[in-house]
């Protein structure tokens, strides 16, 4: 099992969700986050007072998938979230040791 953590542009969430659902993956966790990478921030001006806004709003998706499906999932996320502009985000993959479904007690791949 692998944990896929993807930071994407907020308006791309629905496309990414649809692409992952098409692969038969069930469920994901989504968080509204702020951050910056190469895109950096922007400037806001209120009655002449300028403020540098360094952290931009992004969406963080977390999804745990069976190891065999990792490559397909990565491909789906990348193609759905890509605009080609700076600030499209990043995807991280990390190993998961153990998974339990709380309702039934099923574990690992059966719990995904």
């Amino acid at each position: 099992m692998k944990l896929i953590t993807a930071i994407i542009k907020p308006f791309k969430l629905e496309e990414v969700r649809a692409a992952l659902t098409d692969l038969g993956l069930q469920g994901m966790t989504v968080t509204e986050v702020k951050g910056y990478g190469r895109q950096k921030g922007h400037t806001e001006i209120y009655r002449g007072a300028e403020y540098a806004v360094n952290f931009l709003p992004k969406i963080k998706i977390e999804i745990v998938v069976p190891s065999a499906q990792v490559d397909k999932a990565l491909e789906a996320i990348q193609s759905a979230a890509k605009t080609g502009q700076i600030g499209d985000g990043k995807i991280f993959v990390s190993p998961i040791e153990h998974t339990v479904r709380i309702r039934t007690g099923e574990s690992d791949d059966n719990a995904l």
Partner: protein
Amino acid sequence: MKFNHLKRLAALASAATAVSLLTALPAFAQEAAAEAPKLDTGDTAWMLTSTALVLMMTVPGLACFYAGMVRKKNVLSVMMKIFATCCLMTIMWMVVGYSLAFTEGGDWNAYLGGFSKVFLAGMGKESMSGTIPESVFMTFQMTFAIITPALIVGAIVDRMKFSTLLVFMAIWVVVVYAPITHWVWGGGFLGDDGVLDFAGGTVVHINAGIAGLVAAIVLGRRKGYGQENMAPYNLTLTVIGASLLWVGWFGFNAGSAVAANGSAGMAMAVTQIATAAAALAWMFSEWLVHGKPSVLGIASGAVAGLVAITPASGFVDPKGALIIGLAAGVGCYIFSTGVKRALGYDDSLDVFGVHAVGGIIGAILTGVFAVEAIGGTAGLLEGNFAQVPIQVWGVIATIVWSGVATFVILIVLKVIMGIRVSEPQEVEGLDLALHDESLH
């Protein structure tokens, strides 16, 4: 042909006689009314409406306008300050404010009214003020005594102690607001000197703007001013607030005719024109300087226009209003952005930059653009060179009394009870620190 001319002349003459008789009739009626004031239902209906409109300017108008511009941790504290000021000023006006502003003050009448109507003594159902019940006039003026101190709140947000604010407001309305109101509208020296202030350019806006500047300087800047991000919490609140102010201002300006007549109608028309002109002027100024027009800018410009047309509204024609609006939009933009930052004072929500500057522009330009056929007094453009100096005199008198008295009150309160919250409270935000509440 000649006969026809004669006939026409005769017809004209008889028409003129009829017109002069007709115009004389209301004059007789007015003389009679002066002896025994007669209630006019149209005037009364409009003044009841105006009173409600002006109250709407403060709650919710000004409360939303200001609350949207502060940081999230101070939004409720700003609404609380405005709401509490509204309640407290109502009581102060009932107890003593109205009497000091609008009664005969004996030997001191040039400067202050008397105590004959303390606790609204003698104001009954039948009491009249011109053609409307005195109860309506008193309440209409009460809404002005509410919004003027409430305007000052914009200069002291995020850092003033709530307890001290209440004491300050209670003293200020008696020591500063009531006397200046008496000077201009209550039979005092500025009115006698011929200062034109239709709806409160000096009494309300210059007064509140100067008091705000003094308060901002005595309090000092917000912690982190110029370094931390102090971007507004929610400008939709501010735009709604500005819009409520705009609508309510028809009660303020057209209501200041204290009648449902042509003067009120013209005040309404010029108010709308000046407001739109100032909003556009601010928007285009910002567009030129920063490259983009902003919603905070156009809303601020509208308020600047409303302020500037306030003293002029019963005296100028639409062309004058257009120029007053344009001047206020550009002038207030410059003072609320460049001048404020250059001088370094933290008039947080630009009470000085919008209300004092807009009020001064409007008060002085009233002396330029006043039209005799509209308000009974000619301005500079109609050859009355004396009016501008009179207007300047009104502005100076207001600035001096408001500035000095506000300063003294605040310094005394600073020594007695302190005027600023502690630094940890300021960092935490006043919603939690002072009211145990917060936005979620």
